[in-house]
Structure formats: structure tokens, C-alpha cells
């Protein structure tokens, strides 16, 4: 049976997620990345919006709100990229990859476990930051700004694109991680590679693409398909022999 067609073991995937989350909590670099970056990306747009005068023209409000929401989108784009890029190369560097590969875990399970372990805290943090942002704006911003931000399509786009952007960043990060031999290089490359989908979000945010429900769902579906395909493609890239020998003719 083809490895991709084999049934997934959720026991193994859960074990991976639990281990990863435990490891993140005690990894200072990852913990700081997950805690500090999102706060920065949330505080900055809040300050910008608070600075808007009450009589600001609608077009100015639209631009600032669009930029602010785009800034918030950096959280699901960048936070998991840092974590995901560590997924494989980090294990290899600390010598834990070989023992894991000697277990019955399949590449699809290993990668899905890694991806979900990066996705879950990202979603939690991203939605939490978005919630704090909405609460702060709702409580203290001018009414016309609040009206602009609390539009259903904007909220829907934010809720929908957060996991999909995170998914893209995670798979790109893991793909780079499987091919990289250095954690820092993998993290830098992943951070850059996580940004392109933000262009789409930016176009929606700046009303270049009209944020209708159809557009939001269409773009969301496209990103979802890309994320699922990415999982499959990265699984085929996951080659035990190359990962162990580092591609070197050892």
C-alpha cells in the first residue's frame, strides 16, 4: 500500500502534537517568538487606529484599517514559520530524528503531527490577539472607525485567512526544514517564504479585491487546496535516507 494511502494513526499524531507542545513551552526561543511577536503585531495597529482623528475621511480610515488588519495577519504568517522551520532540521541537529524514524511512524503522520502542533498554538494566539484588538478598538476608537472594522466581510476574512495563512507558512516552513541543514537558515528562509500569500490578504484589505463573501470563500478555498496539496507534496519530499545521511554520500 502506498504510504500516502495508508490510514493515519491519530494516536501517533496526538503523541507528536503533545511532545511538540511540551517542547515549545520549554524552548525559550520559540516561547519568546510566540509570546512577544504577536503582542507587537497587535499593539502597533491599535496605536495607529487610536491616533486616527474623529473627522478622518472614510478613505483614510479604510486604508489605516486595511493596514492594521494586514499587520495582524503577520501573526499567523510569521509565528508558525519560525516553529515549522525547526520541525525537521531541529530534530536532526539535536540527534532526535533517527530514533523517531526507527518507530512505525509514517512520514504523513510525522509531518501532520508537526504541522498541527504548530497550527494549534498559532490559531490560539492569532485569534486571541484579534479578540484583544477588536475589544480595544470597540471600547476606545471613534465610532466611524469601529463601524469600518466591525464589518462582517472583514471579520470573516480575518477568521478565515488566519488558519489558511498559517497552513501555508507551516508547510513552506516544513518543506524548507526537510531540505535544510541549518536551523537558522531554515528559519530565515521560512519567514520570507511565508509572506507571499499576504499579498492576497493585502489586496482584500485595501479593497483592490472587493471583500465580498464569494471572494473571501473563493480565496479561502484556494488556500485550503494549496495547504492540503502542500501536505502531500512535503510528505513525498520526506525521505528517510536523505534526512539521515544529510544527502551526503556518507
Amino acid at each position, binding site marked *: 500500500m502506498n504510504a500516502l494511502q495508508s490510514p493515519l*494513526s491519530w494516536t501517533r499524531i496526538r503523541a507528536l502534537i503533545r*511532545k511538540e507542545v511540551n517542547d515549545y513551552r*520549554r524552548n525559550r526561543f520559540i516561547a519568546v517568538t510566540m509570546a512577544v511577536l504577536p503582542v507587537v503585531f497587535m499593539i502597533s495597529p491599535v496605536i495607529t487606529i487610536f491616533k486616527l482623528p474623529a473627522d478622518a475621511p472614510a478613505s483614510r480610515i479604510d486604508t489605516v484599517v486595511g493596514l492594521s488588519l494586514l499587520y495582524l495577519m503577520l501573526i499567523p504568517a510569521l509565528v508558525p514559520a519560525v516553529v515549522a522551520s525547526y520541525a525537521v532540521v531541529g530534530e536532526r541537529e539535536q540527534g532526535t530524528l533517527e530514533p523517531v524514524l526507527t518507530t512505525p511512524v509514517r512520514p504523513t503522520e510525522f509531518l501532520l503531527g508537526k504541522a498541527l502542533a504548530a497550527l494549534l498554538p498559532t490559531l490560539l494566539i492569532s485569534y486571541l490577539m484579534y479578540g484583544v484588538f477588536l475589544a480595544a478598538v470597540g471600547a476606545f476608537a471613534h465610532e466611524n472607525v469601529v463601524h469600518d472594522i466591525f464589518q462582517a466581510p472583514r471579520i470573516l476574512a480575518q477568521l478565515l485567512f488566519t488558519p489558511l495563512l498559517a497552513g501555508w507558512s507551516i508547510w513552506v516552513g516544513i518543506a524548507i526544514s526537510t531540505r535544510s541543514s541549518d536551523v537558522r537558515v531554515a528559519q530565515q528562509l521560512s519567514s520570507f517564504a511565508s509572506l507571499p500569500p499576504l499579498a492576497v490578504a493585502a489586496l482584500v484589505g485595501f479593497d483592490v479585491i472587493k471583500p465580498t463573501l464569494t471572494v473571501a470563500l473563493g480565496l479561502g478555498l484556494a488556500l485550503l487546496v494549496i495547504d492540503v496539496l502542500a501536505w502531500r507534496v512535503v510528505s513525498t519530499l520526506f525521505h528517510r535516507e536523505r534526512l539521515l545521511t544529510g544527502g551526503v554520500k556518507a
Partner: protein
Amino acid sequence: MKRDGATTRTAAAPTGPAIVVDGLTKRFGERTAFADVSFDVAYGEVFGFLGPNGAGKTTTVRTLGTLLAPTSGNATVAGLPLTEANGVEIRRRIAVMPESPGLYLRLSVAENLEFFAGLYELDDRRGRIERALRAVNLLDRAGDPCRALSKGLRQRVGLARALLSDPQILFLDEPTSGLDPLAARDVHGLIDGLRRQGVTIFLTTHRLAEAEALCDRVGIMNTTLRTIGRPDELREQLFAKTLQITTRTPLDDPDAVFAGLPGVEGWHARTADPGGPGGAGGAGGAGYVLTLSDAELAAPAAARAVVGAGADLLALSPSHHSLEDVYLQLIDEDVEARTR
């Protein structure tokens, strides 16, 4: 070690050989890691795989552990042909402890084992972890982060991890590498305990005393498999049985003394270690080496003959060749063959 939690897999003892390797070869591009290797390992056997650095030992373990695909040849591991399709099932039946235990240092000992128990989809995880830790005498360190453990203790955690799934075959790759003698002795004790319980162990090492003490059979590898057998068999194959005799003064006519003795095929004067006690040519005596066909007949006859010739017999001892002698002999032959 108690393994009362052993699964039905262990209870229903598997039949046939644990490992069968037939003409297995692994190449990385132009470079040959090992070539045309054939051997088998029985269930319950401790098989030592010896060889110098770069001999292909670890690559063999990785290949049999389904981590690397062989370039050619066949093998059966734990009753299953070594194919990509059987990879998951083979890995379910075996456990591999790499040279470096590869622990998650930020996690506790128990968390490390819990993770691997999950990857093996084991039931009664808590019980299994407890038994595995008790087996390696680490139950009281279960909550400690692995980074707080010494290298020897980390090696023990690695061993506990390998025992979690009650594997049919346990591959141990250089388990005492880098350990101090005390920690190495601990690991030897654990392996010996497993051997007494009938666990099949495939042990790669270049510590020859370790192999001699622990292994039922050994294979000596240097890209190709140079020899295989029980340590005593290998000694006999490579070295003739000899008897070393030391007298206070040289014999007047040694040929007359030793020729025709029962069980003795020939003799020569010992020249090595002239300054040593009883060394030939030294101030304190003369040495002779008798080549034997039957040690039990030869030793008393030689003693009587030397005394009968009027010499003072200082020492009479059968020669002892260690596994190290066998190993060095074979590897030296390889080096000579390559430089020729």
C-alpha cells in the same frame, strides 16, 4: 529485570531466524558502505557486529532497521522481507538504539518515553514506562529533565526507550560509546540481563572485550563480512593451540625433549619479550612454544619431559588468544591487502 508486562508478541515466541541477510550491499553513489554481506541471527541470540570505524556497521543497522534501502541483496527481519512496503511492520517489531540516544533534553525522562510509547501505539503506557525505567534502574529519575542526566544515564534512558515496545529484535549501535568504564559496566550489566531473558540483540561495537563478554556469536566486518562465529571458534580458526614453557636455563637439546611427545606437533623457541619474566634469552630463563594437536595429552607429557631432562620448569601455560587478537589479525590482513 522484570518484564511481566511483555506483550503477547513475546509470549508467543517467534520461530525461524530473527534476521537473515543474503548478499546485502549498500552503496552511496560510488562509495560502498558494505558489500555482499550474508549472515543470520537466531531468536534469543546476542550477535556482535564488530569492525573499525567506517566498516559499515551503523549503515548495516540502519539498513536492517529500514532507515536505508539496500542497493542489492535480500534480508528478512523479524520474519518479514526487508522491503519498503514492510517498513512500518518491521519497525513495529524491532527497536533501534542509535549510538547517540537522541533524547529530547527539555523533556523529562517519562515524557520522552511517553512520546515513544505513543509512536508505537502501545497500551498500558504508564505500566510499560515504569517497567522499562525499573529495568534500567532509573525509576526515581522519571521526572527529571533529560538535560540534567549524565551521558551514562542518558544512555540508560535510550535503552529503556528501546525496551518499551518489547521488541523481537533489539539493535544496539555502539551502546557504550563515549561512556566511562563505570557507566559502560552498567550498560553491560543491562545487556547481560536482557540476554539472560532471551531477548535477541544485535550489538555493534568496537569494544572487543564487550563483544567477547556479551555475545554468543560475532561477525567481524570491514566493508565485507570477514568472518563470523563464536569467539572461541574464531580463536581456534585463526590461531593454533600452543603451550608455552619457560625453564630457568636453556635446554641442552630441546628437539630431543619435545619431539615425539604425545599431542605435540612441533616446537620453536620463544623470542618475544626477552626481558620479561621467563622470557627467552633473558637473564632468568628460556622459553619454548609447542604447537599442539591435543592439549590435554601434551601438557603433562611436556612437563615430565622437561623435568626429566634435568631442567627447572618455571612456567607452563596454554596460550590464550583473545577476540582482540582475532580482530586485529583480520583487520591487519585487510590493511596489508590494501597497501600491497
